[in-house]
């Protein structure tokens, strides 16, 4: 099958990929805010949510963006101006770099090489620097405490996140996310290959660990100590207003989308549609939509948990990571490794 992209020149393909990256961040973040933050939580709390702007309040998001853009961009007097202003961009850059490894179809990828999930884990840790910059640069005790809490939490949960991925890498024999999708598409469950072999079946423990660690990495409730509003206002975001607050906000939801997409690729088969040939050109069109559907499903779980459970205390949070998730992930790696060699 001749792919559409192979007929275009290098700069055309690059422009398409940059455009697709912008769409993937903004559209996904917008959808998550509207579908989950505005509507789902409202239904869970027996209310309607925004209803005025557009049909069923679907244009509420544009109204919110307009509101944020009009607000004054305030920098506190004692703040470190440059560090304070640069911090949201560092966080958002980390989100965009995370997106780079995601495949959306047989030819619809940004980069496809061995770096894959290793690169994703490396750049996701860069956002911590942005959060520390925001916490320190604001010259506010709430921001500093929030930044320190966020850092401690992100360091603690990066480890189970990484270790949960190792099981999948052992089973797929590659770190390339595109090839991980293909390994699932071409896999068989006891000789029955109709739906491939999504790794959620064999790596169920890994999936659970990944989802819990992801919830913590996104600082969503019950892991929202860093932005605990009753103690720290909004943690490291306290002093931000207008456009820069909006950037943090978009970053938060876009990262939720990208992490869910990585989980979908690792455990749910990514862009593959059962019954089609994995090299089918149709999947270049269908694949991103399928992946988007899985992202909406996984983020639904994230926000369901967010609006259901109360907040963890700091010591409970650290104990869960170091005494439960890390040993479980290590055991998962050992079992996967042994089975890989034996079976």
């Amino acid at each position, binding site marked *: 099958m001749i792919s559409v992209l192979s007929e275009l020149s*290098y700069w055309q393909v690059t422009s398409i990929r940059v455009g697709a990256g912008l769409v993937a961040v903004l559209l996904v973040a917008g959808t998550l805010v509207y579908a989950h933050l505005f509507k789902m939580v409202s239904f869970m709390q027996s209310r309607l949510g925004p209803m005025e702007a557009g049909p069923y309040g679907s244009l509420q998001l544009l109204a919110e963006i307009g509101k944020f853009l009009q607000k004054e961009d305030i920098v506190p007097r*004692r*703040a*470190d101006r440059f*560090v304070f202003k640069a911090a949201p961009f560092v966080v958002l850059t980390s989100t965009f770099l995370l997106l780079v490894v995601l495949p959306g179809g047989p030819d619809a990828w940004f980069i496809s*090489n*061995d*770096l894959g999930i*290793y*690169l994703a*884990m*490396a*750049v996701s*840790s*860069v956002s*911590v*620097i942005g959060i*520390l*910059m925001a*916490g*320190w640069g604001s*010259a506010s005790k709430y921001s*500093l405490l929030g*930044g*320190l809490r966020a*850092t*401690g939490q992100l*360091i603690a949960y*990066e480890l189970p996140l990484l270790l949960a991925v190792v099981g999948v890498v052992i089973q797929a024999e590659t*770190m390339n996310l595109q090839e991980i999708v293909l390994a699932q598409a071409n896999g068989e469950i006891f000789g029955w290959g109709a739906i491939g072999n999504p790794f959620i079946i064999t790596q169920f423990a890994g999936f659970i660990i990944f989802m819990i660690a992801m919830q913590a990495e996104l600082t969503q409730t019950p892991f929202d100590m860093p932005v605990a509003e009753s103690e720290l206002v909004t943690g490291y975001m306290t002093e931000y207003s207008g456009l820069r607050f909006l950037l943090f906000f978009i970053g938060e939801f876009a990262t939720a989308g990208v992490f869910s997409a990585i989980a979908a690729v690792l455990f749910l088969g990514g862009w593959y549609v059962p019954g089609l040939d994995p090299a089918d050109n149709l999947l270049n069109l269908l694949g991103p939509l399928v992946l988007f559907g899985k992202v909406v499903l996984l983020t639904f779980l994230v926000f369901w948990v967010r609006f259901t459970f109360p907040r963890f205390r700091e010591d409970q949070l650290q104990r869960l990571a170091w005494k439960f998730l890390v040993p479980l992930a290590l055991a998962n790696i050992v079992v996967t490794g042994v089975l890989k060699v034996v079976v």
Partner: protein
Amino acid sequence: MTPAGVLAAGAAGGDLFVAQNVFFGVIALVMIVSAIRCVTTRNVVHAALWLVLVLAGAAAQFILLGSEFVAVTQVLVYIGAIIVLFLFGIMLTKASMGDDDSVAGEKRLMAGLVAVLLAVVMGIALIDSYSDTRVVIDEPQRFAAVSDAIFSQYIVAFEAVSVLLLAALIGAIVVARKE
């Protein structure tokens, strides 16, 4: 032209102004300026942030050389872990906002001397050993090749380093737990 093609053209010694050379110069300039600002700034947090730029520049140079594994490891270990640890430590103890005059440092002359000495020794050693060696990079180094080398050719060294790190880890816990 694909990245591998650019590398091949650079290695063949063709045009001097291939994208790779231009970007090497740009990144090197950023790294030098950041490194100088890192040691001249009087704010500890700023110094750590300038160091981030230096390390990120080093990672970018590794990518230009086709060593993706080293580049990503540089980001993961140095930026993602060590700098974060630095910043975390600075902010937990003392993170004054403006310039800190106690950072000025009366040992500036000595530090400068050591730096110049190190640069001269390393420069001579590198030029002496590698001045007529041409590194031919046909294509980016693959992950699989790195792991194959570690787990076959260098397996003894790898295991020795692993045990050493484990010993250091246990030692750190023992020292920290002793009240």
